[in-house]
């Protein structure tokens, strides 16, 4: 079955020259977009049109285009990664949009994620949080024999679920407080559940939370919006675990 063609779309995009300049919305008309094309392909078509007209193409982040690298972002029609569940923007397809629709595309909005150009934001804040403690520095030896370190199935599953975080920032973009708690809680949980990670658990929770606060992310108010927006469906149970880890660590001080 051939894909339907959207004869006309109105693409309302945030344009901003650089981090210093004032940005503004710009609306472009786009014709003949197949519903089978991906959202980023649609932007490629738009950019092709802009370049042919002698205009500056829209800058947006993308890399693997298969939902695992965490590069793509975009706040589309009021939702991080657009109107579909458990996907990144590169996995979004134009079949989610209708003929004649105006599609509003904005960069992630957070003080800690400043806009670099158009739709690209600087997510170095996540790197800084990771550098504060999102690693294991104790010697864990070589690859252990299977079953040499017994780890319960539930623990392994929960650690893996948390490790699915690709650091895209949709949680920050969606949270009304621009809080990074879901990200930090995933990074803390993936270690907290495993014996190699537990050793530095206290230090890690304290260091990562304090970095998160320092970088200007807001606090968590448990609205749960982040887990709905998360392309990897990371659960806010991780946030409860982070709270637990952090409070126990502080208690031991």
């Amino acid at each position: 079955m051939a894909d339907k063609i959207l004869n006309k779309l109105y693409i309302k995009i945030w344009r901003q020259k650089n981090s210093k300049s004032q940005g503004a919305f710009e609306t472009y008309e786009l014709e003949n977009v197949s519903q089978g094309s991906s959202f980023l392909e649609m932007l490629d078509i738009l950019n092709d049109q802009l370049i042919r007209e002698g205009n500056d193409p829209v800058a947006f982040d993308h890399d693997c285009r298969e939902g695992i690298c965490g590069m793509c972002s975009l706040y589309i029609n009021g939702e991080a990664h657009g109107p579909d569940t458990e996907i990144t923007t590169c996995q979004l397809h134009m079949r989610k949009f209708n003929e004649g629709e105006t599609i509003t595309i904005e960069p992630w909005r957070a003080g800690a994620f400043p806009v670099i150009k158009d739709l690209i934001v600087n997510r170095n804040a996540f790197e800084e949080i990771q550098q504060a403690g999102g690693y294991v520095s104790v010697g864990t030896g070589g690859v252990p024999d299977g079953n040499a370190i017994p780890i319960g199935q539930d623990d392994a599953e929960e650690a893996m679920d948390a490790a699915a975080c690709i650091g895209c920032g949709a949680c920050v973009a969606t949270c009304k407080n621009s809080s990074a708690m879901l990200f930090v809680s995933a990074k803390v949980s993936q270690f907290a559940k495993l014996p190699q990670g537990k050793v530095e658990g206290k230090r890690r929770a304290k260091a990562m939370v304090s970095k998160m606060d320092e970088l200007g992310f807001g606090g968590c108010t448990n609205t749960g919006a982040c887990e709905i927006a998360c392309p990897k469906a990371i659960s806010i149970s991780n946030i409860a675990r982070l709270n637990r880890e952090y409070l126990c660590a502080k208690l031991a001080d």
Partner: protein
Amino acid sequence: MSSFMKSSIGKKFFMSVTGLFLITFICVHLSLNLLLIFDDSGDLFNMAAHFMATNPAIKIMEPVLALGFLVHIIWSFVITLENRKARPISYNSGDKVLSPIAPSKNMLILGGLVLAFLVMHIAQFWWKFKITHEGLTAVHVMQSGVSVEMENAYAVVAGLFKSSALYCIIYIVASGLLGLHISHGFWSALHTIGWNNQIWRKRLEVAARILAWVIAVGFAIIPLYFMIKF
């Protein structure tokens, strides 16, 4: 300790602990207030009020309760304003993930309305009972065979509800607002102190909803009773 108080989780911890403390108070308050509708002579309610007013443990708890309210209210403004600052530019296309009327998104507004109600409520009752004694008459109630003289608090409360449908409605609306605040607040407070996981999540959310309904309906039923019966 100071780094804990300044951290985002630390601030939230105080919101949670004070919130849970306020919920405990609200439950005690509700159970005593319900005596208003179980005895139209007012003796039961007056005995309870007399007991609370003369009990030394309650005397100690009164300033603690005031402190709990103050910390909860001051912190709520500090946290909410700080959180707003984390997003200097807001979205043009809004938020499609959560409904704009979700209690979790409107805790300061709900709390603020409850606060406005509290000011009125304290002026109407607490202020009169403790400070001015305006409109309070003495009654004699038989307690274990002895006639005890006490203040007729029942007459003041029942008098207000019998005389003004407007006040009844204000009290009913406030009960609903408090219920909404708690429908998010109860499970959120436990989540904040780390008491949550995949399994407990649903239990806590259901418990919060039940608690919210009990508190909202429990408080609303009192003015309703006086509106309908008298």
